[in-house]
């Protein structure tokens, strides 16, 4: 269903708050994968506040929609969303990365409620997602599986093994997102190992591709709505995003993949996020 004006404004606000909480979490953790967390935040917010049929009070509910963060290093963006959604107390985010904490760089499905798979090694999550989607078929259940990949992650052969399987088994109860933020650790994706023509690759593997602005909640939502209806082939939504989105001094920089933030930088980041939010709602 298309987003109403109110829904959109609510989601924009959420995205802003959670970007701020993400910055805080990185600060509490000492350092973190901030770039990829910020670029994915709009997708997180859209899914967790509009699409996912979940119950934070019952994280193991058998018929819930699944969300698998295949780019597991974005845990520092996922955890604030889960906290805000009610899976656990926000206070726990302050223990992120601390010795003995349940929260580490890559979220542990055995320790953190709401996490459907322990990812971190790239390329695994999409296979697990195909698995849960196929299981729904065997169990004759109607839950959906959403999976978010990174773009650099798509260098892994396993991603394409899973894509082939998804196409072969026509797992239309699986909806893929790719956070196409164009950067990986060693630089721009096209310098390290070129992905283009990226959309064509997915099409060649049997997917229907929706290319959208990854920071337009409206575009993301339209693509998701489309994916929910499409039954002839699985759908991948390639979201064109900005690594470090919202924090101007780290945007589009490979270094934002993983970094620390001191008090000064936190202050600047929050100010930048405020400005970014205001611009977004102005244009909305």
């Amino acid at each position, binding site marked *: 269903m298309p987003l109403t004006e109110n829904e959109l404004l609510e989601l924009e606000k959420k995205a802003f708050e959670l970007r701020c909480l993400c910055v805080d979490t990185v600060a509490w953790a000492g350092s973190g994968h901030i770039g990829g967390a910020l670029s994915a935040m709009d997708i997180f917010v859209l899914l967790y506040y509009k699409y996912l049929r979940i119950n934070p009070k019952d994280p193991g509910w058998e018929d819930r929609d699944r969300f698998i963060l295949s780019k597991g290093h974005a845990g520092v963006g996922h955890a604030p969303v889960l906290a805000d959604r009610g899976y656990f107390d926000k206070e726990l985010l302050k223990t992120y990365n601390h010795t003995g904490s349940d929260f580490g760089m890559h979220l542990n499905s*055995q320790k953190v409620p709401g996490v459907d*798979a*322990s990812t971190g090694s790239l390329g695994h999550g999409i*296979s*697990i997602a195909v*698995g849960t989607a196929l299981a729904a078929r*065997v169990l004759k259940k109607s839950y959906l599986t959403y999976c978010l990949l990174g773009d650099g992650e798509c260098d892994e052969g396993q991603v394409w093994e899973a894509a*082939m399987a998804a196409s072969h088994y026509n797992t239309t109860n699986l909806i893929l997102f790719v956070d196409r933020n164009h950067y990986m650790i060693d630089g721009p994706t096209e310098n390290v190992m070129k992905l283009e023509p990226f959309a064509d690759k997915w099409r060649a593997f049997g997917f229907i591709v929706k290319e959208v602005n990854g920071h337009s909640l409206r575009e993301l939502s339209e693509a998701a709505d489309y994916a929910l209806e499409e039954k002839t082939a699985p759908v991948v939504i390639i979201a064109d995003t900005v690594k470090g989105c919202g924090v101007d001094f780290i945007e589009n920089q490979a270094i934002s993949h993983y970094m620390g933030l001191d008090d000064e930088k936190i202050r600047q980041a929050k100010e930048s996020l405020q400005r970014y939010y205001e611009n977004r709602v102005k244009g909305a």
Partner: protein
Amino acid sequence: MGGMNYDVYSQIKLQTMEVYGNTLCELAAKHPDIVALSADLAKSTKIGLVQEKFPERFFNVGIAEQNMFGIAAGMAKAGLTPFVSTFAIFTSMRGLDQVHTDICYQNLNVKMIATHAGLSFGAAGSTHHCTEDISIMRTMANCKVIAPADGYETANAVVAAYETPGPVYIRINRGFDRLVYEKADYGFEFGKAVSMAEGTDITIIACGSCVYQAVEAASVLRADGIKARVLNMHTIKPIDKDAVLKALEETRRIVTVEDHNIMGGLGSAVAEVIAESGRACAFTRLGIPDCFSMIGLHEDIMAFYKIDTNGIAENVRMLLGREIEEDEDWTDEV
């Protein structure tokens, strides 16, 4: 065709893998949560028997092992019990990151039945041999490791795998295995070694295809008056510490035999128990001596690496001659 010779008059004229496939079909008929996966090896690993009976519960992922283990993990998360089959080398190496992270780390109910273990696929060469898997899978936390000795034991192990929660790794051979038991109902118990022969001169601890060889070796030795105890250590993790300690106390000489590298497998697992016990023991590990094997028939390669009947008997005799610690004083006490 390579593989072990078999006796056409054997009660079960089935390859061990066929026994596995049939047992799985029986289990699948009883338990709707069982699903089966393969990476284009459904025919080779005989998990294809499930495909024939329950096509909607069988998934072939093509030659994509890493994806397969990921999918299995996803299915286990949704409440199914996936049985995954490919060759041992691919389970323990090609898909190890996935086995480790998706399955073991998340302690999922995935049962990995790895075929063509050890040097049983002799003619195929080292690309298809697997003499490292026991070592590798032992170090995966949460994972149990079983190496059944024959078809009957495989059937028991598959059922035990279903009944034991969490990841289970079972390694079986290509081809036929000589039968070690007369029936399935011999008292298989997960985690408990089976005593195949009794004696107190020396203990031979074996697993998999080496159990038959050890039992035969014990017969040969018995004719010479040597009474060797033979333990079938089918469950290598968790290892039956009590059985090892008992053998240590009562026989003080232990030989381990496995179709696996001497590093890190059954021999090492037993050595760990011995070393930690603080008791002296004359000990030797028989297996593949940390090298890549030649090609050939499984029986011939086993003979070459002295993990067959003659090789075991020879090593037992050698070990019996070895002095243990400072028992050099042969004067009578007065």
